[in-house]
């Protein structure tokens, strides 16, 4: 038996079956719907030309609008949602949406190829925030590349788009929430096409049943890396289990001095809590990819993926996080650093998944910072990612956890540097000595992101930056926003 994928496309109901489960939303729109407004610019979620908006009924009785990259989202992951594309924004009388009007009036398009993506990112912003700051707009547009305009007119449009009507046809449609609710499922989607399966369980119980039968199934979370297995590596998958519909894995909660983040929580979901407890974590997360990626990319995926250049793990390792994995035989917990075994190898056993991350709340005297170095400030992969957590008492380093990404085959603690810190006075000399110890911790590589020499030099200097910042030196780094 196979369920059909049911969703709305620009307000019209769609029932899709027979399509390969790894058909991307972009391919579906362009090849099957012949709605060619949505463009392919990179097929890896890095240019934003394919940006669409997913509208979902939330538990508060309203609708969430999230910009996502259609090039790396699979069609079955549209189930129960409203897919809004650039062709769907005009009002019923044919007039332009305020976002579109503002882009035209501000001369926000030249070649126009990136424009649909900008329109959709701005459309999501228009729904989510009626008075964004310039900084908010810059963050929202971090995932949209334009090669022609130089962006100034687009930023103007983001201001002028509030000068038109304050509601649109989506706001004025009283039936939409109910229609979306009715698309919801009680049990998981089981989609089959051409002998390939896409399963989206809605509970841990269902997941367990599926994994018991199919221990070799490919696990899909946010899909921002998985999507590239299909679009870039052209791999084929017989059976995909999507964790994204398991609501119980999406919670972000504090209990008994620990912040627990469910594996399904996206970076956008986790950002407020992380920023509340560790203000430095907020800026760090905002430089992590782009909103359309953070809207779907999960904490669990970022960890289980075991990329040496993932930004989450070093920061979480410095904060002494542990990871709870869950399998057919129950749960087990381990320090995050033990989770990473080797390049792209983890401690997960067959049928196990990362269920949640547990981060101890900050204790008094804890100084924490996470730094990301990359060629471009926004939406770039780190050449070096550094995270420092020191507990300093009476000027002396009592505890030190230092972790780096981009310096080794896995995200890794810098044990020699930590040893050079613990028990020493927190001074320039100590920071410099700990930096020198990084030579023992790491032998980074040369690649297109940075040379080994830069990685090591900059890593050492980041320790000095951390020292300057924690000792109250002004202008120790360039403000992000």
């Amino acid at each position: 038996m196979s369920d059909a994928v049911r969703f709305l496309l620009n307000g019209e109901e769609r029932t899709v079956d027979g399509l390969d489960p790894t058909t991307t939303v972009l391919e579906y729109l362009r090849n099957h719907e012949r709605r060619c407004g949505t463009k392919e610019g990179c097929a890896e979620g890095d240019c934003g030309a394919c940006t669409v908006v997913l509208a979902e009924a939330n538990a508060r009785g309203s609708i969430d609008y999230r910009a996502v990259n259609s090039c790396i989202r699979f069609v079955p992951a549209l189930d129960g949602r409203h897919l809004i594309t650039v062709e769907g924004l005009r009002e019923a009388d044919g007039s332009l949406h305020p976002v579109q009007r503002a882009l035209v009036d501000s001369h926000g398009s030249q070649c126009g190829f990136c424009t649909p993506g900008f329109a959709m990112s701005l459309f999501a912003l228009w729904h989510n925030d009626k008075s964004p700051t310039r900084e908010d707009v810059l963050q929202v547009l971090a995932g949209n590349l334009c090669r022609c305009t130089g962006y100034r007119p687009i930023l103007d449009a983001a201001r002028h788009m509030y000068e038109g009507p304050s509601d649109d046809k989506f706001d004025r449609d009283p039936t939409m929430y109910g229609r979306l609710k009715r698309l919801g499922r009680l049990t998981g989607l089981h989609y089959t096409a051409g002998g390939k399966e896409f399963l989206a369980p809605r509970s841990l119980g269902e997941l367990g049943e599926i994994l018991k039968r199919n221990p070799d199934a490919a696990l899909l979370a946010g899909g921002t890396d998985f999507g590239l297995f299909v679009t870039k590596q052209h791999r084929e998958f017989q059976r995909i289990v999507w964790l994204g519909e398991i609501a119980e894995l999406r919670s972000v909660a504090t209990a008994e001095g620990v912040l627990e983040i469910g594996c399904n929580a996206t970076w956008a979901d986790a950002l407020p809590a992380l920023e509340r407890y560790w203000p430095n974590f907020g800026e760090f997360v905002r430089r992590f990819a782009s909103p359309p990626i953070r809207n779907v990319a999960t904490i669990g995926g970022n960890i289980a993926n075991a990329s040496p250049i993932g930004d989450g793990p070093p920061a979480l390792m410095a904060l002494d996080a542990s990871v709870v994995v869950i399998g057919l035989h129950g749960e087990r917990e381990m320090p995050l650093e033990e989770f990473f075994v080797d390049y792209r190898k983890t401690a997960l056993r067959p049928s196990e998944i990362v269920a949640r991350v547990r981060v101890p709340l900050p204790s008094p005297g804890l100084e924490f910072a996470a730094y990301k170095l990359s060629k471009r400030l926004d939406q770039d992969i780190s050449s070096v990612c550094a995270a420092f957590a020191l507990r300093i008492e009476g000027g002396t380093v009592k505890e030190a956890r230092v972790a780096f990404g981009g310096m080794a085959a896995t995200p890794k603690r810098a044990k020699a540097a930590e040893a050079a810190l613990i028990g020493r006075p927190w001074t320039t000399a100590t920071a410099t000595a700990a930096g020198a110890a990084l030579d023992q911790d790491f032998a980074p590589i040369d690649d297109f992101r940075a040379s080994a020499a830069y990685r090591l030099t900059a890593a050492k200097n980041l320790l000095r930056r951390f020292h300057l910042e924690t000792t109250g030196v002004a202008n120790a780094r360039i403000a992000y926003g």
Partner: protein
Amino acid sequence: MAETRIHGGVTAAIPHDSAAKHVTGEAVYTDDIPEPPDLLHAYVLMSPRAHARILRIDTEAAAAVPGVAAIVTAGDIPGRNDVGPIFPNEPVLATGVVEYVGMPVLAIAATSVKVARRAAALVQVDYEDLPAILSIEDALAAKALVCPPHEMKRGDTARGLARAPHRLRGEFRCGGQDHFYLEGQVAMALPQEDGDMLVLASTQHPSEIQKMTARLLGLPANSVTVEVRRMGGGFGGKETQPSIFAGIAAVLAAKAKRPVKLRLDRDDDMIMTGKRHDFLVRYEAGYDDQGRLLALDMILAARAGHVADLSPSIVDRALFHADNCYFIPDVRLIGYACRTNTQSNTAFRGFGGPQGMLAIENLIDDIARRVGRDPLEVRKLNYYGTETRNVTPYHQAIEDNIIGELTAEIERSAAYGPRRREVESWNRASPVLKRGLAFAPLKFGISFTTAFLNQAGALIHVYTDGSVHLNHGGTEMGQGLMTKIAQVVAEEFQIDIGLVKITATNTGKVPNTSATAASSGADLNGMAAQAAAREIKSRLIGFAAMQFKVPPGDISFAGGRVHIGERSLPFGELVGMAYKARIQLSATGFYRTPLIHYDRETGSGHPFLYFAYGVAVAETLVDTLTGEYKVTRADLLHDVGRSINPAIDMGQIEGGFIQGMGWLTTEELWWDKTGALKTHAPSTYKIPVARDLPADFRVQIYKAGVNRAETIHRSKAVGEPPLMLANAVWLALKDAVAAATEYRVPPRLDAPATPEHVLMAIEEARRRAAQLERPLLAASAD
């Protein structure tokens, strides 16, 4: 009575003609054109080797894959396997030897790209590696060039250097740049009757595709028709290289006898296509105590890639701009287009000009630091004069020099002097962060330096209801060319622009066109369209004079009406009458740029009709611990003559500047040791995003601008020049690096100034500063 002003005439800042279609997704790009039901999709198998002999190609297993309709290798090309725009023997598919990692080896057409790709994976190719040249240095050492070196000289450089009080030898390197048009290369070839071929392609040069497709298929040019309505960006990347992909699609279509579409995905596009040339520059300069440049001997060596493509002309243009705004009494410039086993580099906005200009800007900056003067003062000291000191290294006298006026204006408006003092004092108090401030001027020569390319045609029909069909040889890549030309025509007929239908560029309508390139689109096609409109207008005037017995001098067009003596008619009404009187309401227009010539043998002539000018001041903030930086403010003042459309020109200025900034900052091309490009997608190749826009960005069109040359409505070309305003950003980063040593040593900073290069430049400058025992002036006065 008559309206006073039409909508959308020249000087009106109207939006791009397709703006509403862009924002609704209704604008049709090549890949959006409805597909014929029997369409095949193509995939290109690329070489994994930088240089190797092909011993064997086995396609048997691939051919057996269900859905595969045609496979072509070089041997299947019915005509000549050559798309060389200047020199012959530039194959679209490898003939016996592969010359770079990514070179097309064969192509497969199948029912889907997926099937074609799957089939390609089954193709077996045996290679025997040959020695590969992967760097400019290696090419220079091996004397591997794609064309003979080009030299320009004036005066006696050896004598000038010998007499100069100070001499400076140096080396400088600037990186290439991927076009990163958001829409990748794409073409659809549709076989027609008689073996003809219709090609719909994303191209800046439909006539080139027509010519090359005909050559590949062994057909006369009249058997191939090429059409393009718009591109999703071009920037030079769609000048010559689309011929490769349109050509492959056409060869497959001819073989399969079915339409074939070839659309490259981002990675394949970046791996296969050429880019902006990276350059290695070596120089010896002589200067005096004030920083006046007395003599310069400079070589500019470019990575051409495996074939010439347009590299000879690009290196020429680098030489043409290696003087920028500066008079050099004794000068010799030599350009080398180096043959390397990498992508064949090609046109990119500026066409070598930016690299030449950056080389001299770097040199002037170094000289200023050595003589201990503000670089702006040294720049002004070296400026071309207006009557004297105004002859370029290619012996053209500059007759329209306004750089002094522009400089004075921006010095004031950007408060350069006070900010210079403020920045230096701020830096003294800031050990980690350093601010940099810099000014950069630009002078850019306008005209194709290959004289015969400076021609254009247009075709205008006026229908009996007074609506107008406009066609010309220029192509729309986002720059707003179609809008501007429609404004010119609306102005000529004095009708609202809404009555002028913009139509796709088509080789069947206007033949033998030049590429939309060299910033020439509006200059050339605007004049051609104006000529066509004037031809129809003169026929209408002749008719009206006869019909209403009014002297032609008493007939005028204004506000949508034709005023005939005391009488006034709507334009459409007169047109209807003229039709019934059997007046021809269709005309072609043609334009050739006057006055220009250049002799490559002697390196002299008058290659440019005029020059465009601009100035910029940029300020940066650099983290000396990590090399990270921000551009905190940029002031631009740019000369567009009399603007046909200030909104569109503003878009070119700002967009060009940001694109140039990307070239000089975050955009880094990186090849591994085997010659494989590893930065081939936006995840690894970083063009500017919104946050990179300077937080304080002040852009002005030069209000007093007017072209002294007789161009279309006295406007100036604007496509390329503003890109070079970004030199100010790079110089401001260099200034901040210098600040890290309290300005004691002139730092060496190559481009692009990635955070890594900035940090390494700081570390290197600090090492040198630590060794410095003597004060700078004494140290450098050797």
